[in-house]
């Protein structure tokens, strides 16, 4: 994947803050810059003589940056490496290669002790509100945990601060002593968000924050995340597979396929003029809540859409060169031999394709 490095992504892919974005994006340096981030998981065989027999190339040479106050969305199908990327950013997974710079500090290989003060500033919202809260702890203990772990003394005491946090996320502060099982899925996700906010982080990485919730609750949580961002000036990296949710919450969007970043662009530009064929296919696959009619002979009308055949190939043995060529309707010989670089196709719009659409 040397092709990608030819366009120095760390610099060129950086957001141009302030423009064409609804939210305030103070000019200046990026809050988070990720360069050439790579994670290969070894596949082990044998019981006594453990040896690596292959590698799952979960994330391969991914570069992007996030400006303060911005929301970056990472979207892709299962197995594309979006969750691994998120976990590397918060240092839950050790990167194989690449560099993560947060707020001017290189945190790629910081030791636990050195990482600890920075953990106040980077927090994570998890996907499953059922497994991410300890069932034996009360809400007070859960939301107060960051204060305890970081030995932070708040002015009004931990209990008062926790109650304020509960109020901030729309929960009743009197529920301080209740247990997670007494709450619904949406309320639990709010508890998780309150815990995330406890130490007033700068960056929040949210891995599928609403995918486990019902539609009406999903909308409540999305609105909450947006309100909190406006109120507290948060920066989000949001991982999701739902393209309509991503369009609603994100300013800039990165599309991943099989461990590669294939497209990165401003929200409106991406949805109006997607360049990478995969993005085009992904967008056209989203079912639209506009009913289809029936033709005169009673057959159901078909929506015009690009139909990708087959499944995503295994990341254990990804296709050479452009990883999308096995499912791409535009693939030529060059796609099988040479990896397309992530190149700028329009201001702020990057796509890794030899034959981009809409250009």
């Amino acid at each position: 994947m040397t092709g990608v490095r030819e366009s120095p992504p760390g610099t060129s892919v950086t957001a141009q803050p302030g423009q064409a974005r609804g939210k305030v994006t103070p000019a200046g340096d990026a809050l988070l810059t990720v360069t050439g981030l790579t994670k290969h998981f070894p596949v082990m065989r044998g019981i006594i003589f453990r040896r690596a027999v292959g590698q799952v190339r979960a994330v391969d040479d991914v570069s992007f940056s996030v400006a303060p106050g911005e929301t970056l969305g990472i979207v892709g199908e299962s197995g594309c490496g979006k969750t691994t990327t998120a976990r590397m950013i918060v240092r839950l997974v050790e990167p194989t290669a690449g560099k993560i710079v947060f707020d001017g500090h290189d945190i790629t290989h910081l030791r636990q002790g050195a990482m600890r003060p920075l953990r106040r500033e980077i927090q994570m919202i998890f996907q499953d509100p059922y497994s991410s809260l300890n069932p034996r702890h009360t809400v007070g203990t859960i939301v107060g945990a960051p204060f305890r772990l970081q030995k932070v003394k708040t002015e009004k005491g931990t209990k008062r601060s926790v109650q304020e946090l509960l109020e901030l996320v729309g929960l009743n502060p009197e529920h301080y002593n209740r247990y997670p099982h007494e709450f619904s899925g949406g309320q639990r996700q709010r508890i998780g968000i309150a815990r995330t906010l406890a130490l007033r982080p700068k960056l929040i990485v949210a891995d599928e924050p609403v995918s486990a919730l019902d539609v009406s609750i999903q909308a409540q949580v999305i609105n909450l995340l947006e309100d909190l961002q406006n109120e507290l000036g948060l920066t989000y990296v949001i991982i999701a597979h739902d393209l309509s949710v991503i369009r609603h919450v994100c300013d800039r969007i990165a599309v991943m396929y099989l461990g590669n970043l294939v497209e990165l662009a401003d929200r409106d530009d991406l949805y109006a003029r997607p360049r990478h064929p995969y993005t085009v296919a992904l967008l056209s696959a989203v079912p639209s809540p506009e009913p289809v009619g029936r033709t005169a002979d009673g057959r159901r009308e078909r929506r015009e859409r690009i139909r990708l055949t087959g499944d995503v190939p295994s990341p254990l043995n990804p296709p050479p060169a452009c990883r999308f060529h096995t499912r791409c309707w535009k693939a030529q010989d060059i796609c099988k031999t040479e990896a397309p670089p992530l190149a700028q196709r329009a201001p702020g719009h990057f796509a890794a394709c030899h034959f981009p659409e809409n250009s």
Partner: protein
Amino acid sequence: MADGESPAQESRAGGRPARLRARDRRGRAPEVQATDGAVGESPPSALLDLRDLRIHFPTDDGLVKAVDGLTFTLDRGRTLGIVGESGSGKSVTSLGILGLYNTGNAQMSGKIYLDGEDLVAADQARVRELRGSKMAMIFQDSLSALHPYYTIGDQITEAYLIHNKVSKKAARAHAVDLLKRVGIPQAARRLDDYPHQFSGGMRQRAMIAMALSCDPELLIADEPTTALDVTVQAQILDLISELQQEYDSAVIMITHDLGVVAELADDILVMYAGRMAEYGSSEDVFTHPGHPYTWGLLGSMPRLDRSRMDRLLSIRGTPPSLINVPAGCPFNPRCDYAARTNGRSETEVPALRPVGPGHLVACHLSTDEQRRIWAERDKVAS
């Protein structure tokens, strides 16, 4: 397929001792006769005809009214989409139709006519004959619905062998055809694979092949694409739609995703707290919905086909517990328009009322008011 004859949960029913057990042999409880007389007794003409179906579960905490008076019909070649949030009774309805509840675990009343035959009154043996042959189901989670110890081929041929007098060889050939039909490459070889060797999309295809093995007239798909990626979802939806036209079967599509419903359904039933909130053609329900809950669902959903909204119009609160459904209109504590009904919504259960041809809404708001509010909301959203 599992059949629901296990009396294991009977003890939980408390207070309904041996007397009931005696009736179990006929497969129904005395409550069954207590259907209210308002339901017409005219013979059904549609393939599936539900009349005032109620499915209640006695639990230690109280009676869970999972389905509370559901009436609709469905013809061959048509697709009905049932939409609602978790706990609205969608899945219970489908399992009830398949006869997977009995007096041992649930109290069922009302009528389910499948091709003129009442399944609530029918005995278990008869329902078992129909299940898998005349009606079949595609489950949501293909990994847990397929047995990990049996090959895909074993599982597809099982129902076919039970319902038809054919040799194993013929059944196997039939299974190969089915796998080919649902788009699995190298079908003859893949037949001997185990479920874990299939990808998620392929497992869902195999499940569809299983459901189709006896050429069912009624196909129930319970969230068939929820666990799948969006590009694979599009493939599966296309497949279901194609197969329906080929087999001319009636399809019930259960989902919480309004996009999926719009893609496939002719008619839409919106369920809330075990009851029907709105029913109509998919054209009607999407272009001029009448129930505030339907408005809420549509407003909660970010849409790619419209310009981006600054804020989603979410529904406040959470769905009610089915043990303690709010008095009056079950939606009233979450409804933004409840105040306009002069308190009726808190005391009176709204009856289903036609607001247009074949379009029913259970709401106290007048039809004009519904139209006006929806026009306003729709303008804001687009």
